[in-house]
């Protein structure tokens, strides 16, 4: 399965090596005699390859450069390509000579819970601790450049999704496809076959590889979609799974289009989980040394990758399967120094065959691996007697853990198999069916039959004819039998628990687990968090059961009694780019443009994002600062006239004989008495009595109203209108529609506003009145409403005619000595006038009383939120209430500042909007929410902003700074 005709050059820690197509980084390095591939997280111990697949905990590397750098990539799950650049992790200055390895020597000072115990103290100490912890924390380095490549999301549907293409998965996919089901087959490897790539077999008279090729061709003929290099990451509700398809390897430059990965959301009828099982390591001293490898992995390297991982192998096992490794390695020329079988009895044909060739011991358990950067031997206890053997490879098998991750994510229950020491899939809750090794089926014939059964069952459950289901393939292979695992989790006498690693990726030892238990961490959830067991990037794929078993033994309970922590997606780490997909940069959110967007854009104003909209903050003149421009525009409105684009406001038309009754539900203010051609200020409550938005309500005709809302509230308002329409009062004869984008709008404000309106040939309505008219044959609606405190009009025009209207207004305004103005001026004018705003004072936690709106409430109630207002807590005078502030010195007041008294204690409120007087003084003013605010007028407080490093002395005043009598906007 390795193509030796063509070499591939790659670098590891700067040195150039050569591998071949089909090699993983791990197999290519092993072939070059490189066993030391990384340093461990906490102790910087030398580490090599333990596995041959995604469960690898040790051999993690950083791959690629710049925007293609990816940390924590498993060398066993990285297929090499020309130009691959990989670097080892957790070492300094180099892998061979690591200074951090001194941690190994002081290991006894970094026990479980080290950080919890050491970094205890007053809060200010954290400023120092944090530096220490950050230095030591984190596995791998984060990329330091923006992602270079593209990611996309795609949705798919199928009848049967098969996860895994080993013998069970292929048999399942064939059975379901033959029955007529639409099948998607996902395989995380670059090629189909799973365990068939590791162990020789004949299927239906063909070699394993030929049979796989034929199965693949047949599936394609039947219309199945086959996704290789695609991992099922998560099993979510209603049979939706997320798959990550890797189009290129980590760090590799994609082809045209630049697509690096594709995230699939697959909705399936049934899901066959044929994810296989992963082999467990064994606990003994220095079980993390390079050269200690899982027995099946050793076989994979030999068979699939053509690499002999050692010349003198020691095999340690508790099952029959590892004997296969012994026979295989011997066939390739390795010497089998010893087989150490922990079982008291092993008389299967494969054990007998191996015993005839090699020295095999029963009741034999490893005590320690010898050697440092590579093993050179081991000690073991055989029937109570200690022996010592030499070897450069220790192939271990502690039994098999069925990969129940997806089954569990789908809400499935687990059963416990005591002899195997394994959780197996129990009752499912969704459409999942586990098959093959994932269901703890062993022996090729059994696995194939189980896969075919699962595929057929899935198809027939969905109504496909099972009569056409295909027979399971006939396998011929040596030792086609169960593994006879006899799980023993306790360590052999003489094992140094401080170097017996349960979780090699997070450096959690057997001693750490024992210590946590002695310190009272009895729950598996506590143990996990205290020791960090299983919390590394491999999520404890190889370590979970070992850790649980150790805790269970200490507790004197069984493993299922101790329980299992929840497996959460993703199954293997996912790069953030894949989750983001296309939603990055400018594509992260839609851009909403008002009808005047290009008119504004031609002036290149500084933009303010408001929801998905972009609104001009001001229109600065050359050389003018934003603040100066905002102030100039605001003063111009106060003194002459200005205009601004208010098209983003929410606008709703409500029509029908019951429109008034409908609006009486929505609006907390009087509705019924509103005359045709008039409008009024209104606000809306949530059901808990809190104000959620405000706006104006206009009666256009007998049964036709226009309701405006804030820009931010425009997207929430339809939900409230719809709720009243369909749930609270479905019987009303009324219809509503958002006309937000049908009408564009311009506000004209200032003492000269009426003259501007007249110059368009329109009659300016009285305050809170409306007129209809036309400008250049275009229909317009003029509403006299003031946000600025000056005489002001909102002129509405069909969106496509707004640009023309704006140009006409621009000419009129200019001749009046006026200006266009942006959000900065809008805010300055609003704050000086003491108007509340959604998002500032209306923050979702204020009652009408808090915001001084009590007197506008409709006495009879009947509006959404009315009953809740009776709660005593909502009328407590000590609530935060709306008041104004003025700076004693006239200095600007920091927005967001806390309001403190000179006495120590909690803040009494906070600044919600900060502005300044437009009366020429420029004095700092603000709107705020203050405990019992209106009762404290005249009191002096400190507006404290630690984040800005500023404290300003302020006086509590009425929030209406400008024209408190309200004469200016009435003309």
């Amino acid at each position, binding site marked *: 399965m390795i193509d030796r005709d063509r070499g591939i050059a790659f670098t590891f820690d700067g040195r150039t090596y050569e591998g071949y197509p089909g090699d993983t980084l791990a197999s290519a390095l092993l072939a070059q005699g490189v066993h030391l591939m990384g340093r461990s997280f906490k102790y910087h111990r030398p580490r090599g390859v333990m596995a041959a697949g995604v469960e690898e905990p040790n051999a993690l590397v950083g791959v690629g450069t710049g925007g293609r750098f990816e940390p924590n990539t498993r060398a066993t799950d990285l297929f090499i390509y020309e130009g691959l650049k990989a670097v080892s992790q957790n070492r300094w200055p180099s892998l061979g000579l690591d200074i951090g390895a001194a941690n190994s020597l002081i290991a006894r000072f970094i026990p479980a819970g080290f950080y919890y115990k050491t970094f205890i103290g007053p809060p200010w100490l954290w400023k120092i601790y944090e530096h220490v912890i950050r230095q030591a924390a984190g596995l791998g380095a984060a990329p330091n450049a923006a992602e270079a490549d593209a990611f996309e999301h795609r*949705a798919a549907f199928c009848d049967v999704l098969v996860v895994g293409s080993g013998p069970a998965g292929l048999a399942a996919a064939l059975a379901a496809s033959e029955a007529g089901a639409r099948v998607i087959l996902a395989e995380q490897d670059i090629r189909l076959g799973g365990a068939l790539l590791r162990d020789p077999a004949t299927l239906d008279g063909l070699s394993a590889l030929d049979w796989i090729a034929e199965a693949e061709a047949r599936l394609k003929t039947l219309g199945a979609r086959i996704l290789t290099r695609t991992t099922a990451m998560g099993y*979510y*509700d*209603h*049979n*939706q799974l997320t798959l990550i398809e890797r189009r290129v390897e980590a760090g590799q430059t994609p082809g045209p289009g630049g697509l690096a990965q594709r995230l699939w*959301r697959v*909705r399936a009828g049934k899901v066959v989980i044929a994810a296989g099982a992963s082999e467990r390591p064994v606990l003994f001293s220095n079980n993390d040394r390079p050269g200690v490898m899982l027995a099946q992995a050793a076989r994979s390297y030999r068979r699939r990758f053509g690499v002999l991982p050692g010349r003198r192998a020691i095999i340690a096992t508790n099952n029959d399967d590892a004997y296969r490794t012994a026979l295989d390695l011997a066939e390739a020329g390795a010497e089998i120094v010893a087989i150490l079988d922990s079982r008291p009895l092993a008389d299967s044909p494969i054990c007998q065959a191996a015993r005839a060739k090699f020295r095999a011991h029963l009741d034999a358990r490893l005590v320690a691996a010898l050697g440092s950067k590579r093993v050179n031997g081991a000690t073991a206890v055989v029937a109570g007697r200690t022996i010592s053997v030499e070897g450069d490879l220790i192939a271990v098998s502690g039994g098999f853990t069925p990969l129940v991750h997806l089954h569990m994510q789908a*809400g499935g229950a687990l059963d416990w198999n005591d002899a195997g020491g394994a959780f197996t899939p129990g009752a499912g*809750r969704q459409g999942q069916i586990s098959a093959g090794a994932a269901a703890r089926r062993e022996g090729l014939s059994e696995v194939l039959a189980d896969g075919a059964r699962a595929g057929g069952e899935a198809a027939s459950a969905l109504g496909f004819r099972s009569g056409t289901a295909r027979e399971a393939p006939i396998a011929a292979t040596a030792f086609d039998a169960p593994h006879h695992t006899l799980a023993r989790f306790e360590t052999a006498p003489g094992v140094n628990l401080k170097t017996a690693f349960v979780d090699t990726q997070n450096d959690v030892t057997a001693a750490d687990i024992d210590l946590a238990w002695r310190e009272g961490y009895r729950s598996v959830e506590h143990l996990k968090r205290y020791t960090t067991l299983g919390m590394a990037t491999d999520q404890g794929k190889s370590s979970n059961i070992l850790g649980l078993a150790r805790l269970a033994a200490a507790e004197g309970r069984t493993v299922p009694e101790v329980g299992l922590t929840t497996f959460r997606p993703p199954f293997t780490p996912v790069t953030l780019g894949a989750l983001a997909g296309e939603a990055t940069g400018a594509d992260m959110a839609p851009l909403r443009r008002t009808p005047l967007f290009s008119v504004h854009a031609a002036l290149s104003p500084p933009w303010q994002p408001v929801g998905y909209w972009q609104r001009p903050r001001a229109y600065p003149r050359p050389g003018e600062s934003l603040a100066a421009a905002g102030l100039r525009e605001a003063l111009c409105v106060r003194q002459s006239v200005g205009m601004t684009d208010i098209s983003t406001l929410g606008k709703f038309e409500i029509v029908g004989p019951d429109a008034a009754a409908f609006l009486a*539900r929505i609006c907390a203010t009087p509705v019924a008495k509103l005359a045709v051609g008039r409008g009024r200020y209104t606000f809306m409550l949530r*059901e*808990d009595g809190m104000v959620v938005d405000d706006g104006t309500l206009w009666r256009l005709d007998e049964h036709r109203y226009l309701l405006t809302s804030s820009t931010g509230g425009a997207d929430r308002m339809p*939900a409230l209108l*719809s*709720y009243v*329409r*369909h*749930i*609270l009062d*479905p*019987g*009303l004869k009324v219809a509503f529609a958002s006309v937000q984008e049908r009408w564009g709008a311009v506000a004209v404000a200032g003492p000269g506003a009426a003259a501007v309106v007249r110059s368009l040939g329109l009659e300016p309505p009285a305050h809170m009145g409306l007129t209809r008219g036309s400008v250049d044959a275009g229909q317009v609606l003029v509403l006299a409403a003031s946000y600025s405190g000056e005489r002001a009009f909102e002129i509405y025009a069909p969106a496509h005619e707004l640009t023309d209207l704006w140009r006409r207004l621009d000419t009129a305004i200019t001749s009046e000595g006026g200006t266009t103005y942006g959000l900065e001026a809008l805010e300055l004018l609003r704050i000086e006038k003491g108007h509340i705003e959604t998002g500032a004072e209306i923050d979702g936690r204020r009652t009408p009383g808090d915001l001084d709106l009590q007197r506008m409430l409709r006495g009879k*109630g*009947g*509006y*959404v*939120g*009315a*009953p*809740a207002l*009776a*709660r005593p807590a909502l009328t407590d005078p000590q609530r935060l209430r709306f008041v104004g502030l003025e700076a004693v010195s006239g200095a600007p007041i920091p927005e967001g500042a806390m309001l403190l008294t000179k006495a120590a204690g909690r803040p009494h409120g906070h600044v919600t909007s900060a502005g300044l007087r437009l009366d020429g003084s420029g004095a700092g003013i603000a709107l705020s929410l203050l405990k019992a605010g209106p009762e404290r007028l005249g009191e002096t407080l400190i507006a404290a902003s630690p984040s800005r490093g500023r404290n300003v002395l302020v006086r509590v005043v009425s929030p209406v700074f400008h024209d408190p009598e309200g004469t200016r906007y009435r003309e």
Partner: protein
Amino acid sequence: MFLIACPHCGPRSQAEFVYERAEEAVAYPDGTPQETLAALYTRANPRDFAWELWRHAYGCRGWIRMRRHRTTHEIAEIEAVGARL
């Protein structure tokens, strides 16, 4: 992501829907303060099926009543609700 069979549109992804509330959380504007508080704050949350109101906000915009299990998310019944569109 649930798969929700909208009575108007057929099976669609949950991404198109907005969960509005448990049916018993509807607080009527003419209700008593006690009824309102019960609807808003003191509802039971059993591990069982419950009627809920959803809205097909990014589809037909219709309202839906569904009986969903609060832990398994199984949807046992689903029907259109509200004013006639």
